[in-house]
């Protein structure tokens, strides 16, 4: 067992061994410009298109619908703004949930500064979007695009994507689905018009995002013209990284059913045990309708930064949505929107291969760390 238990898969999954192997091979074989017509270029082109076909198949898309971006965030930015641009004659209204990834909300803010409008639909105490309000928002005339994540990145709660997609279809509104937390772990829900994902969250390398645009969806890049990636993403493709991303997705998806069920049981153990061994804890998010790998809890009267530091010293890499751990010194917008405790917050997200022994060790050290921090703060 390694000295540090890495429990921050929702930030980044460690590189899959098959991705590493593919990356090294593709650095030698796939360096040339895939848009050119000589031997090395054709080879790079072939590698790129093979990777595209594999990624498309794993995510439930057609190869010609898939473009590669430089990150999941860039995929969301291009997806949101490109669809709004393509649909500007239909209207300029954007609908999202209040707990989307910041890339969605920041793209929406840019759209607002540009004269568009945005409505963020609230969520329940478990972080699930209010489907009735979402549907009503989508039905509003002039809605150009709606956005909904498959699972929340901070609390793991699954969103009702299939139902939201049905409502969007009824009103002729495209739906952008941010699948960053579930791609490679769970099947893609049906009904998306635009799909985004990030390779380093499924064990691929950093620097590869996926933007899939369903055939028939109006889309127009808002950036200067560039012929790469079906004119959706500017710039020279990182072929070796894309090849590695496809290899990781293939490997992760092949083992997903068994491995994610195992991970989900470890998460369930944490969810059930933490409130039994630590007093004054709120476990956050939906206990059943959740992504397999994420569990979040908040400890009353505890400084989140202090808890993260103590856990780091004890050999655990975890993350937090507490304000003291953010560069902005604001609590996570997700926890705020849910109305749950934002301080003393810990997000545990288990990567592939996380062991029961590591989870047990985490559960063994946590109560004493929390007790000590409370004691130091003068809490009886």
């Amino acid at each position, binding site marked *: 067992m390694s000295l540090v238990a890495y429990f921050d898969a929702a930030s980044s999954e460690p590189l899959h061994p098959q991705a590493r192997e593919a990356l090294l091979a593709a650095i030698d074989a796939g360096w040339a410009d895939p848009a050119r017509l000589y031997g090395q270029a054709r080879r790079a082109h072939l590698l790129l298109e093979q990777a595209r076909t594999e990624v498309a198949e794993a995510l439930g898309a057609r190869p010609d619908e898939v473009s590669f971006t430089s990150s999941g965030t860039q995929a969301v930015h291009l997806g949101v703004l490109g669809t709004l641009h393509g649909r500007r004659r239909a209207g300029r209204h954007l609908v999202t949930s209040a707990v989307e990834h910041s890339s969605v909300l920041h793209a929406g803010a840019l759209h607002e500064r540009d004269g568009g409008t945005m409505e963020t639909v609230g969520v329940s105490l478990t972080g699930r979007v209010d489907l009735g309000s979402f549907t009503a928002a989508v039905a509003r005339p002039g809605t150009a695009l709606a956005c909904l994540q498959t699972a929340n990145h901070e609390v793991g709660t699954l969103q009702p994507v299939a139902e939201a997609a049905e409502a969007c279809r009824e009103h002729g509104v495209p739906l952008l689905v941010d699948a960053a937390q579930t791609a490679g772990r769970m099947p893609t829900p049906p009904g998306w018009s635009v799909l985004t994902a990030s390779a380093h969250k499924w064990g691929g390398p950093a620097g590869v995002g996926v933007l899939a645009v369903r055939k028939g969806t109006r889309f127009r890049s808002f950036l200067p013209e560039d012929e790469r990636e079906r004119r959706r993403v500017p710039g020279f493709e990182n072929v070796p990284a894309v090849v590695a991303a496809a290899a990781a997705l293939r490997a992760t998806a092949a083992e997903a059913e068994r491995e994610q069920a195992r991970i989900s049981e470890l998460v369930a153990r944490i969810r059930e045990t933490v409130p039994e061994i630590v007093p004054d804890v709120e476990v956050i998010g939906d206990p059943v309708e959740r992504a397999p790998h994420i569990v979040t809890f908040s400890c009353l*009267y505890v400084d989140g930064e202090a808890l993260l530091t103590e856990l780091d010293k004890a050999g655990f890499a975890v993350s937090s949505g507490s304000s*003291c751990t953010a560069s902005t010194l604001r609590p996570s917008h997700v926890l*705020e929107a849910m109305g*749950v*405790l934002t*301080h003393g917050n810990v997000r545990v997200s288990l990567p592939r291969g996380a062991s029961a022994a590591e989870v047990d060790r985490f559960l063994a050290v946590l109560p004493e760390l929390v007790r000590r921090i409370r004691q130091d*703060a003068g*809490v009886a």
Partner: protein
Amino acid sequence: MTEVTQPALTIDALGKKCPIPIIMLAEQINYVPLNAVVAVLADDPAAYTDVPAWCRLKSHRHVGSYELPEGGWAIHVRRNY
């Protein structure tokens, strides 16, 4: 506009970061009689979410949060038990 109950106790947590305002509230709510109101003055944005969340967890009542002219909020909590 409904009448705001006069707080029996005001906790000045202005300039204090969470979880300190919550720790102060938990300590001092027992100083007021049942059904009395405690006002927590706080300007850490986390307190705006965390005081109502604390009330939900501890079965006290969050009466309302009122913006202060100098920034921050007066967050009113009714002692339930």
